[in-house]
């Protein structure tokens, strides 16, 4: 016996999951289920697609039609599923490495197409699964096993990247800010186009330990104490925003959606034979 939400949407024979004590991925995975539940979606019309990484293990735990694919390719598989059956709600669960490093090209081109996928990034600022290599979202100056003297790269702002590439809904949540993050995922699912929700996770085992961020509780308190809503952030200076984490909805526009355009093309040239 677990809560109704867990009973209904999780493969309990696979629980407890393998994530470390205090890993934010468990909180974010529940947020995805809560968003699906709040929207009252038909379970049989939801597909969860993931790549490879700690985050991508989510596809194994969630009780929907799920597919755990190869590293960086979740969005490519999801594109195929959505084009074959546009009536499905296709949700991609991916990591910062999976989505923005090896899978970065798939990400920007899915955004450019504005295909109706909801990309939920469990962003822990590190490659957790392989032992703490720095990722495209590791903040400058932070440490990873591949940045023993500190990372000199600038990091990606994932919602800004997705918006620039053509996505029509973007936002950022955190492991701490549960109701806000659930709402962003709901809005992302409702948006008819590419939605990207950057969900800042906590990886106490690698990112936290390498960067002396303390326990999972300390890392979540940092999120609580340093998050600034995007609406408020708009009126703050760069100086004031230093060291802060901007959360909330960042962008929402309507643009032609790829599977709908594809269907129109099929009809224009005489229908599928």
């Amino acid at each position, binding site marked *: 016996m*677990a*809560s109704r939400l867990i009973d209904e949407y999780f493969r309990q024979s696979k629980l407890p999951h393998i*994530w470390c004590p205090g890993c934010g991925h468990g909180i974010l995975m529940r947020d995805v289920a809560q968003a699906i539940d709040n929207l009252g979606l038909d379970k049989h019309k939801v597909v969860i697609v993931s790549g490879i990484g700690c985050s991508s293990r989510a596809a194994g735990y969630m009780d929907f039609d799920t597919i755990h694919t190869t590293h960086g390719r979740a969005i490519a598989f999801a594109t195929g599923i959505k084009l074959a059956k546009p009536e499905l709600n296709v949700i991609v669960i991916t990591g910062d490495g999976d989505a923005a490093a090896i899978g970065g090209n798939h990400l920007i081109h899915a955004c450019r197409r504005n295909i109706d996928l909801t990309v939920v990034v469990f962003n822990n600022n590190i490659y957790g699964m392989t032992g703490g290599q720095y990722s495209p979202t590791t903040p400058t100056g932070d440490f990873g096993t591949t940045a023993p003297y500190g990372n000199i790269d600038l990091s990606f702002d994932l919602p800004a990247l997705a918006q620039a590439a053509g996505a029509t809904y973007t936002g950022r949540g955190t*492991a701490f800010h*549960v109701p806000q993050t659930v709402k962003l995922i709901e809005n992302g699912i409702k948006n008819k186009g590419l939605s990207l929700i950057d969900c800042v996770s906590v990886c106490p085992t690698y990112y936290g330990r390498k960067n002396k961020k303390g326990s999972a509780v300390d890392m*979540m308190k940092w999120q609580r104490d340093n998050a600034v809503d995007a609406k408020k952030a708009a009126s703050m200076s760069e100086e004031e925003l230093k060291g802060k984490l901007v959360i909330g909805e960042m962008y929402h526009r309507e643009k032609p959606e790829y599977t709908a355009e594809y269907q129109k093309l099929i009809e224009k040239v005489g229908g599928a034979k």
Partner: protein
Amino acid sequence: MASPTKKLCVKPEWCKGCGICVAFCPTETLELKNGKISIAKPESCVACGMCEMRCPDYAVYLTEEGDN
């Protein structure tokens, strides 16, 4: 003040002892006992759900009375 309609339940066999629920419970209802979740003061639970929404392991939750 315990909630009249909701019951606090724990599932220690799923708990990994991260302490998130204990830290964010506003009424100090929960504690870790031998590294696992335990209800220290059931009467102080206000059924706010702060623990349930942030437990990464789904080891604490509220049910409607008679739900289970």
